Every structure is written in structure tokens, then in C-alpha cells.
């Protein structure tokens, strides 16, 4: 027996997942597939398709694990302490902390981006957000250990790490300095998407 609120929530999930952009991506994938088939022949096309499907099935469990972590961090994180660490007033130290956090965040984009969304929703400063995701992208320890080292060798990996070390902090400083407006998806939703988010806001009110 599904209640009305649950039914609406499920409907919302479906429309979110299969929105307009989904169909654009699907069309793009099909066009690229046809181009690939015509230019490189059916064998390369099938090989590419097989690799892609293996990649997707291999990723699904990791995505589920990463989203569970992000969801739990979202409800467990002590927001006020956190925003003191990398919030608007955190200064240069906040950028260094965000960079260090990016280096040690394990897992692929499926863990880093949901965590970034959590930080944004918890009031992290824009410079810290940019520094975190840049640091995770260029300096992420897991990628260096699993990919850089075996493919490019130790000397090259170490050189790349040392040369790129200051870049996330630089990016954070630029992000603070740029006069661009920023409205995150998390902040923009005044009426909560779901009962989950509704009780989020409610219990936050209760705590105050």
C-alpha cells in the first residue's frame, strides 16, 4: 500500500531521472554510436559498447556506496563546526583544509561531487568549494596511486603532484576574487523536493 506522499515522491524521482537532459544525452549517445559505427566499422563499435556496459555495471555498486556515504554525512555532519572550518570566514586556512580534504577523499566522482554538494549546503565558502573539487581532481591520492603510478611511473607522478600542489589553493583564491554570483542547487530549493528534505528542515527548526 503506497501512500499519496510516497507516490508523489516516486513520481518526482522518475521525472528527475528522466528529465529533458536525459533524452538529450541519449540522442547524443546514439548519434556518436552511429558515427563510430560508420567511421570505424561494426567491430570497433561493438567493442566500445561492450566496454561501456562493463564500465557502467562495474560502477553501479561504487555509486551506491558513495551516495550512501554522502547521504549519511549530510544528516550526521555538525553543520556549525563544519562551516567554521571552511566557511565564509575561514580565510587562507580554509583553502588549505579544503585542498587537504580533496587529496584524501577516496573514490571517484560519485563520492566527491555528492560530498561537495553537502559542503555547499552546509555553508562552505565558494573558494573552499572550488579548492576542494580542484584538489580532488588534480591531486586525489587514490587516482594517483591507482592510475598515475602504474601508467606514468613514480618519478613523473611525484613531479606532477609537487608541481600541481599549489594549484587548488590558487583556484580557490581566484574563485573568492571573481565577482560572479553563485546559487547552489541545494540553496535554491525553498520548497523541499520530498518528505525527506521536509523533515530535514523541520528537525533543523526543532534543534534551534
Amino acid at each position, binding site marked *: 500500500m503506497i501512500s499519496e506522499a510516497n507516490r508523489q515522491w516516486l513520481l518526482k524521482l522518475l521525472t528527475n531521472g528522466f528529465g529533458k537532459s536525459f533524452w538529450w544525452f541519449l540522442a547524443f549517445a546514439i548519434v556518436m554510436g552511429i558515427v563510430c559505427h560508420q567511421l570505424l566499422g561494426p567491430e570497433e563499435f561493438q567493442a566500445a559498447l561492450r566496454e561501456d556496459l562493463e564500465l557502467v555495471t562495474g560502477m553501479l555498486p561504487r555509486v551506491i556506496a558513495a551516495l550512501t556515504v554522502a547521504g549519511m554525512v549530510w544528516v550526521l555532519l555538525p553543520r556549525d563546526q563544519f562551516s567554521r572550518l571552511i566557511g565564509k570566514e575561514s580565510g587562507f586556512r580554509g583553502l588549505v583544509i579544503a585542498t587537504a580534504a580533496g587529496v584524501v577523499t577516496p573514490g571517484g566522482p560519485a563520492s566527491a*561531487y555528492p560530498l561537495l554538494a553537502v559542503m555547499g549546503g552546509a555553508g562552505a565558502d565558494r573558494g573552499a568549494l572550488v579548492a576542494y573539487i580542484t584538489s580532488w581532481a*588534480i591531486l586525489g591520492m587514490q587516482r594517483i596511486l591507482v592510475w598515475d603510478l602504474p601508467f606514468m611511473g613514480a618519478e613523473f607522478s611525484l613531479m606532477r603532484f609537487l608541481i600541481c600542489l599549489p594549484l587548488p589553493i590558487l583556484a580557490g583564491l581566484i574563485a573568492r576574487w571573481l565577482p560572479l554570483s553563485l546559487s547552489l542547487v541545494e540553496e535554491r530549493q525553498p520548497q523541499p523536493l520530498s518528505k525527506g528534505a521536509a523533515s530535514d528542515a523541520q528537525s533543523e527548526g526543532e534543534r534551534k
Partner: protein
Amino acid sequence: MSVGMAIIYGAPIVLASYALSRRDDTFRRGMTRAVEQFAMLVPRMFCALVAAGFVAKLIPTEFISRFLGDEAGITAIFIGTVTGLAIPSGPVVAFSIAATFAKAGAADSALIAFITAWTIFAFHRVIIYEIPLLGVSFLRLRLSSVFLLPILAGLMTMGVTRAWEWVSVS
């Protein structure tokens, strides 16, 4: 690999058990959020990854590697950066391309520009994660903040290598 795996699968178990042990609705709220994000991300992820696989096959790696040698200097850094921008897929493809470049004699500066550009811009990540979870205004801020970094990284590498050669010669 096994340590990474242990963290990836251990962390959700530890966090979820802790949330459950609170005996309030913490666990349920966390899971609700996870399920919402899953529904938002996975259909797009499927299409984007399939498309990325095809695009990666279409990039003329061998041809590009001819322009990345040490003698090309700053031009090689630019070409490395642009190639990095164009790779819309994960580390498997990006690093095998980097290895192809390295084998063909690409300069370190061009390789570092390539890897930095790919890690920063990776188009599939932007589409699959960044736009749905953070929004276009964050993407704009981030891209304006980081677009010079790959070239900067390449130039710094070139400077370091030149200085190193100069030191070891004299």
C-alpha cells in the same frame, strides 16, 4: 586497490550503522537523500558513459602525439591542454592515451598539461554530477577559476625541467 575498496565499501557500512544506532529518523533521512540522488544521476550517467566511450574511440591519438615533443615547447602545452579538454571519459581512457603520448616521446610539460586539463574539465563528470548536484552557476564559477591551471602547470613543468637540465649540465 584493496585498501581503496575497503574504504569505499567500509565507509557506508560504518556510517549507516552509526546512523541506525541513533534510533531516530537519521538513517531514513540519509537514505532518502541517497535514493533521490541515485535516481537523478544514474540514467544520465548511463547515456553519458556510453557516448563518452564512442567519442574516445574517435579521438586521433596517434596523430596528436606527433605535436607533443619537447621541441614544440609552449605549443605542445596548448595542444596537450586542448586534447585533455576533449576527453569525455574516465581514467582508463585518459591514462592509456597519456601512456601512448609518453611512448611517442611527448614532453613532460605537455603530458602534465594534458592530465591536468583532463582531470579539471572531464566533460562527463560535469554533465553527470556537477550540473545536477551543484548547478550551472557553480560550474561557471569553477571554470572561470581554473581554466588557466593546465597551461600554468605545463609552464611550471617546463621551467622545472629546464632548470634541472641547466643544473645537471653546469
